[in-house]
């Protein structure tokens, strides 16, 4: 099937199998390997991307379901010299160790701050219910998000 996706601001057209998962499309067809796969049951959140601006688990969507949609991956959030405040916050506050859960964490946090620009610690923790981290114990992730709240930047 032919699909058209606006990926990180650029439209692209690809031929995909109906059963191809969105996360595999992103990683293997579009070549953006920042989105990771950590489970098969939609629990871990490593695959979180933004679909039409809302956080979605790309392992639980078929690429064909994203036809015509805007998809934002971690690569589209910011890059060298122009990091998103959340990315900067994760750096400042050691919000990552192995980095595997990080892209998903950052995008889930992005959704949180979009809906709730000044969350409490409790609210931050609950907003991360869909994202597992095994390295950090979550505390520095909370601090990273708080940093972004305090430094909204441009």
């Amino acid at each position, binding site marked *: 099937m032919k699909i058209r996706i606006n990926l990180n601001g650029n439209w692209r057209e690809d031929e995909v199998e109906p059963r191809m998962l969105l996360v595999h499309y992103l990683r293997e067809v579009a070549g953006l390997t920042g989105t990771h796969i950590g489970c098969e*049951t939609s629990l871990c959140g490593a695959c979180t991307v933004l679909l039409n601006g809302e956080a979605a688990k790309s392992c639980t969507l078929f690429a064909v379901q994203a036809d015509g949609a805007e998809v934002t991956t971690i690569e589209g959030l910011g890059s060298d010299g122009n990091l998103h405040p959340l990315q900067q916050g994760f750096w400042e506050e050691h919000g990552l160790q192995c980095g595997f859960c990080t892209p998903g964490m950052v995008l889930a946090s992005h959704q949180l701050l979009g809906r709730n620009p000044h969350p409490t610690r409790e609210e931050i923790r609950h907003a*991360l219910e869909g994202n*597992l981290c095994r390295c950090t114990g979550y505390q520095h992730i909370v601090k990273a998000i708080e940093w972004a709240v305090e430094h909204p930047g441009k």
Partner: protein
Amino acid sequence: MATTKLLGKRIKRKEDPRLIQGRGHFVDDIKLDGMLHMAFARSPYGHARIISIQTEAARNAHGVLSVLTGDDLKGKLGPVPCAAGMEGLKVPAHPCLAGERVRYVGEPVAAVVATNRYLAADAAAQVVVEYDMLPAVTGMDKALESGSPRVHESFGDNVAFVARLEGGDWKTVAADPAIKVIKQRLINQRVGPMAMETRGVVASYSPGEDTLTVWSSTQIPHLLKTQLSLMTQIDEPRCRVIAPEVGGAFGSKLNVYGEEGVACLASKLLGRPVKWIEGRRENLAGTIHGRDQIDDVEVYFQPDGKVVGLKCRVLADMGAYFQLLTPAIPTSTALMILGCYDIKNVSVETIGVFTNKIATDAYRGAGRPEATYIIERAMNMVAQELNLDPVDVRLKNFPAPGKDITLATGVSYDTANYQKTLKKVLKLSGYSKLRKEQQRLRKKGRLLGIGLSTYVEICAMGPSSRMPAGGWESGTVRVEVTGKVTVLTGVSPHGQGEQTSFAQIVAQELDIPFDDVTVFHGDTAQVPMGIGTFGSRATAVGGSAVYVAAQRVKKKMARIAAHKLGVKPGELVFEEGNIQTKDGSKSVTFKKVAEEAYMARELPPGMEPGLSELYVFEPPNFTYPFGAHVAVTEIDPKTGEVRLRNYFAVDDCGRILNPMLVDGQVHGGIAQGAGQALVEEIIYDENGQLITGTLMDYAVPKAHQFPWFETAHTETRTPVNPLGVKGVGEAGTIGSTPAIVNAVVDALGPLGVRHIDMPLKPEKIWDLIKHGAAPGGHAS
């Protein structure tokens, strides 16, 4: 930036820019020309005989190039290795693909190689295996009964080994009528390491050159290289292993797995790269598990709270086969079973038991959390029995501070001050206020519990004479022609941040900009020799190697500079990119000296050109970090739910090089220890079916389940290495599990509860509250 005094500073990580942008390369991000994908058909049974494997349909499936079964490996691929050995150990044959029998759910039976991962998965599902189901055995008590199913027929029973450790004379103690005893069965349940990145490998054999290049999500690239060379019979000089970014491991990737071997063989046979990426279901069934002990402990104590003897039978569940260190893990339990206390009489019998499950192996703490759990629960049970505060029982049993001691188990601790960390955590937590709050709340029917654990642990693995495959670590510091510095380390981090901390060490030693130092790890073609990252050893052992190498480079540069400046090397200091006399009157830049080392026009007579030093640090001993944790839990009496309300940790990991990284390790460690205490549990049913096979059933803790961790440190530098660093990777996990269980038991003390087994799930607690504690005061 200012380059003096980088050590001890909160320096941002060099690793982060690429990882926060999604630009890190994990093994599944590796794409090679002609790369194929591998999928496995695995045993759905805990124990069965393989009658036949029909691969016809799989072979003919779309996109399939090869199907391999156990028979195809004979003479071509060696078995899965085990590096641990001990007297009388029964070692099962462990082929990379199942032989005549399968012995655990998830055991790989056949491998399919296809052009893409979807087709490989399709084809793997078309491998038809005819099984004859056999009775399985999963409980260790059952496995030890005569007449129980044998996991390995040829062994006659399910005992892998029996080890004994004795000290003092516990029998006299036990016979003394003035001595009290508590007997308790403690279950240290099986858990899954659950790194966020599952395992994976890309094996690339080059037929023309007869070389093998392997990318693997591993903690031990050099050890893996040696083993894969032996397994594939490709000479070691022509084998290369690369650990790319590794997404967490916690011990589960300190190993050599059958799938890695099969991927190498498939690549060799097909002459093309082969990739295998583990799914999460595969991971929960097919990657090693941690813990899984049944500990029957007897603690002997005086009425004043002094503990005089400890006896324990440790049943350690091996699983069906050994992985790299399986039988060695529980031996650390016996060694550390006395914890911080100079208990004079000890007797530990450790029995390794085969069951129809996947192997256990190293998981954060690897035998030491089990020991700390036993002794810290024992101390609390003594306190409860005598109606003493657990703090007082600790103080009564701690050795005098500041002296080296050797315990009845034979383990010798260097200078420790357990009183200091305990005092600090009591202050940090406001312990006496917490006890008062507990009293107040109890009057209102609320169940607040305060749990203490004081631990000591053994890490910074370790003296080679006591390690299965070497315990040294290599560090290379090479100043390049341009004056930038390359550091090569044999450790293989997976989140710990050594690209940052080792750059701190070298930049500070040479007094050059932090940004001028680049650290590499993980590639056996680049790093000449190495052991890897595990056992909280990376900074203590690997960092020390890098530190000494930097000192040696510094010495050589001083000689070159001295020769140039016409002074003695001892007159020179390294000062912010210059090498100069103390008064600054004579000076040459670091860069100029580097250049000169390679241009070699004005070197001191007899000096070799170049500026690279390799040092291999052989640690003279392990290190013994210690600490004290306090957990505060409140139980909802209506639901039995345990809320971890507060957590306080004081840890002494020796010198702290980067406090941010240390805190990260402590937090992560606490989280995993808490996970075991509260929610995690691998469950096999009596047929060997893995019940907790996906994340729908295996509970991994989430952000909202943790309170803010309040952490503090004392810094008692170890004399064992030149940095004074002890290691901190596992300490959080070791301290937290008993602290939390102690807290929950404390909360339910008024109900007569003496013990509850982990995980402390709501239904368990609710049942206890509703129906009361069983006679004898403990519930499982």
